Structure formats: structure tokens, C-alpha cells
């Protein structure tokens, strides 16, 4: 996951790119013949200093390698932002970056 976080004024702007195929049910059926092979990120969240700043439940209709841009208040330069996603098959990935 690529994460870029920048402090502007008192707002932290974050841009994150998660690497994931985001296979829909239809795509899975077409490619493998089984709808249950669909796999996509189902939940993604971000936290700073143990506080959740971004939290989303997602469906298969996000693009492949989905991009999330969000903003929040209450972060400082140098703070570490940590993001985690979970997909339908239970894989998880966590990455972090420093707020610039």
C-alpha cells in the first residue's frame, strides 16, 4: 500500500493506493467459473496515534488497485499514519507512513 500524508494548515490530507485485484463476482465467474472466487477489499481503515481517522466498509465495485483520498483534523507533522485492509478471503495488509 502506498500512503502519502501531508499536513496543510490543521488538516491532514491523505492519499492511499491499495494494491488489490478487486475481483467482482461476475469477473470471477467469467474467469474461473465460480462466483465464490471473487475477492475484494471489504474493510479499510487508518489510524494515527491509536485513534481511527478513516474507516470504510467496501464492496467489489471499487476499481482495481483502488485509491482512497481523505482528510482529517488532529494530526501533526511526523506522526505515523497506519492503514490496514482486509479482503473477502481474510488476507490483511498493514502499511504505515509519516505525516509530512
Amino acid at each position, binding site marked *: 500500500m502506498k500512503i502519502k500524508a501531508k499536513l496543510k494548515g490543521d*488538516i491532514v490530507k491523505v492519499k492511499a493506493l491499495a494494491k488489490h485485484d*478487486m*475481483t*467482482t*463476482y*461476475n*469477473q470471477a465467474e*467469467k474467469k474461473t467459473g465460480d462466483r465464490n472466487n471473487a475477492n475484494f477489499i*471489504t*474493510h479499510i*481503515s487508518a*489510524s494515527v496515534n491509536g*485513534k*481511527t*481517522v*478513516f*474507516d*470504510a*466498509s*467496501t*464492496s*467489489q*465495485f*471499487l*476499481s*482495481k488497485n*483502488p*485509491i*482512497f*483520498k*481523505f*482528510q*482529517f*483534523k*488532529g494530526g501533526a507533522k511526523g506522526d505515523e499514519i497506519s492503514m*490496514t485492509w*482486509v479482503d473477502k478471503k*481474510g*488476507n*490483511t*495488509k*498493514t*502499511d504505515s507512513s509519516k505525516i509530512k
Partner: protein
Amino acid sequence: MLRRNFLKVGALAAASAVVVPQLSATDFRATKPDTWTAHTVDDAIKALYGAITPIESGVTVGAPKVASNGGAIPVNVTSDIDAKTVAVFQDANPEAAVIVFEMNEGGIINYDIKMKMGASGTITAIVEGKDGKFYKGTKTLEVALGGCEG
């Protein structure tokens, strides 16, 4: 991340599939499962929020008028409403729900996502305000090349 560690994390995740690092968060896929299988926007909204009549103001949905690539349509949702949740739906794909954001302290409703749409349609964003009211914004767009079959 080292490959070894990555595998370890993967194995651990498989062993304890239910234990998710974020504890304060709501997993709307678990709490509102019907939302994600509903085929129409109205049904999905009903499954998520119940029978509501949203006010059609206060929410702005931004998207290109004509999307050349239905596989990755940039969508922006903004609102100044003090909100609990923000949900995005569309009516072009087999199911309607796209994403549900849960707002946290210090959160700002200004989200950019990229989504798939199989055909031209309308994107609907619902904002659940802390005042108990619901607000709605929509954006209709044309999709030149559908992105759901991949």
C-alpha cells in the same frame, strides 16, 4: 515487508480470520449484510438505514460527465454536515452498494475514491447526520466503456 513476515501475517490472519486490528470500527458488511446484496439503490439504503426520506441537499457528488473507462471512475463526495456515516451507491452494477464510510472525530467529508460501473447510471451518496436526519446527493454520468466484466 519481508516475505517471511508477510507470510506469517497471512497465516495468522487465516487462523484468526475474525480478529481484525481495528476495534473501534464498525464493519458494515457484518452488521448490515443485506446492504451489500441488494440490487437496487432503494433496497440497499433501506437495508442500511431503514425506511428514510433523505433531504436532497448538502451533499455534493463529483464525477466526470462522461467516463471513458468504467473500470476506474474518479468519484468525489463532499459535505459540511456533521455526520455519523456516509454511504455511496450506484444503479449500474448488479449490486448497488459501493462503500460506507464511518466518520470519526476530526473527520472531514471529502472523500475521493475510484469505482467501477458497468454502464451509464447514477451515483447516490447518503449522509447520515448526527442530528438524525439524512441527506442525499446524486450525480448521473455516462460510461463509455463498462468496467465490470474486466
